[in-house]
């Protein structure tokens, strides 16, 4: 049996760890709330913009804008959004593995697959496997619209310059605090859904300026918003995942402390018993 002192030491160290995981959980919980609010706040904008785009492209004929152009898909760009920091369970690794699998699956059907990473963890995971086309670390610490716009510009420029023919976004979408869904989302070329709302008579819109000009403004905007939304969801998901991970870590620590305390008490009891035995046998021998 381990000595009293060494058990005590372990208890203290586990308690310290618990302190840290508890603190991290609290911090994540607070950050999560804010991140969640941001996600919820951004949703209507993204949704409405999608609707506007929908109504614009519904009655559209021909390719009015380069971002709508469907080229033969030879070169794929996969944008992987991960967090910058770890200690959040399988949040990043699951996503990276999904990306890895996806690339392996698609390798046959594309001439070239490039990877762009946003967030440090994704970069670290994927850099050993693939050449990273571009990396943007530390943009998620404070997700703002400007960053998203900057990223969108990068993506759009590359697409127009035909560096790639198709762009997909891979990120953890935030469903609940406990669960994040790994999501693949095609960004470019913009998918124009056929207007399948047949029971609704198409509304004749007045456009000002022309449809083409409006599209030219809305399409890039839409990319920005999609990236922005994905960024927010990643941040919220990260905090959610970290909170859950830290919660279970704290629980494990509690369990560990319980076990160790039991062990400690047993050892103490054993020590006392031995001591008593010694005293008793000592006094017995004096009497005798």
């Amino acid at each position, binding site marked *: 049996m381990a000595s009293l002192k060494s058990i005590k030491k372990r208890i203290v160290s586990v308690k310290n760890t618990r302190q840290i995981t508890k603190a991290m959980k609290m911090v994540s919980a607070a950050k999560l709330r804010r991140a969640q609010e941001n996600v919820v706040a951004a949703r209507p904008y993204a949704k*409405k913009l999608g609707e506007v785009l929908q109504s614009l492209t519904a009655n559209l004929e021909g390719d009015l804008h380069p971002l709508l152009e469907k080229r033969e898909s030879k070169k794929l760009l996969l944008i992987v959004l991960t967090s910058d920091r770890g200690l959040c369970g399988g949040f990043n690794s699951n996503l990276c593995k999904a990306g890895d699998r996806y690339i392996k699956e698609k390798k046959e059907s594309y001439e070239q697959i490039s990877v762009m990473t946003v967030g440090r963890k994704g970069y670290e995971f994927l850099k050993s496997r693939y050449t990273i086309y571009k990396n943007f670390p530390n943009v998620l610490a404070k997700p703002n619209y400007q960053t998203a716009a900057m990223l969108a510009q990068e993506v759009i420029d590359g697409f127009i310059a035909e560096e790639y023919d198709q762009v997909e976004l891979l990120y953890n979408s935030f469903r609940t605090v406990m669960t994040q869904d790994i999501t693949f989302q095609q960004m470019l070329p913009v998918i124009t859904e056929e207007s399948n709302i047949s029971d609704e008579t198409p509304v004749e819109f007045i456009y000002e300026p022309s449809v083409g000009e409006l599209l030219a403004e809305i399409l890039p905007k839409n990319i920005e918003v999609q990236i922005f939304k994905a960024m927010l969801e990643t941040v919220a998901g990260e905090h959610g995942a970290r909170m859950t991970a830290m919660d279970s870590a704290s629980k494990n620590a509690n369990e560990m402390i319980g076990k160790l305390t039991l062990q400690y008490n047993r050892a103490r009891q054993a020590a006392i018993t031995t001591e008593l035995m010694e005293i008793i046998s000592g006094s017995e021998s004096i009497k005798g």
Partner: protein
Amino acid sequence: MAEKMRLEIVTPYKKVVDTEVDEVTATGKLGEFGVLPGHAPFLTSLKIGELAYKNNGLIEHMALNWGYFEIRDDKIIVLVETAETAAEIDVERAKAALGRAEEALKKLTSEDKQHKIYEAALERAIIRMQVAGKGIRK
């Protein structure tokens, strides 16, 4: 006139306005326009400018950064990057921004990339100050 329109102003950060209105005027790309209930479906882009809506005789002014304006079945959706009510505008900050933008513009030629950015900043600052001066009027 009992009819009203539903006005929603949404930015990426939050839904700023969600209310019933009688009348809306805004600055479109091709100039100022106004809509009343029963307007035909209409979609336009907005430039940096002012939006005013009237509700029960009360006019509220807002400063908008550029975005879109859609009306359909008496439902108005305004998607903008930023939207501030007169009360929210920090006049001091707008003034400072105006000064900065003017300074920068003096040094730059119109070909400079930065020129456009500062021009937009200048425009925003001017609009903000205009709107702040108006506030809510009867």
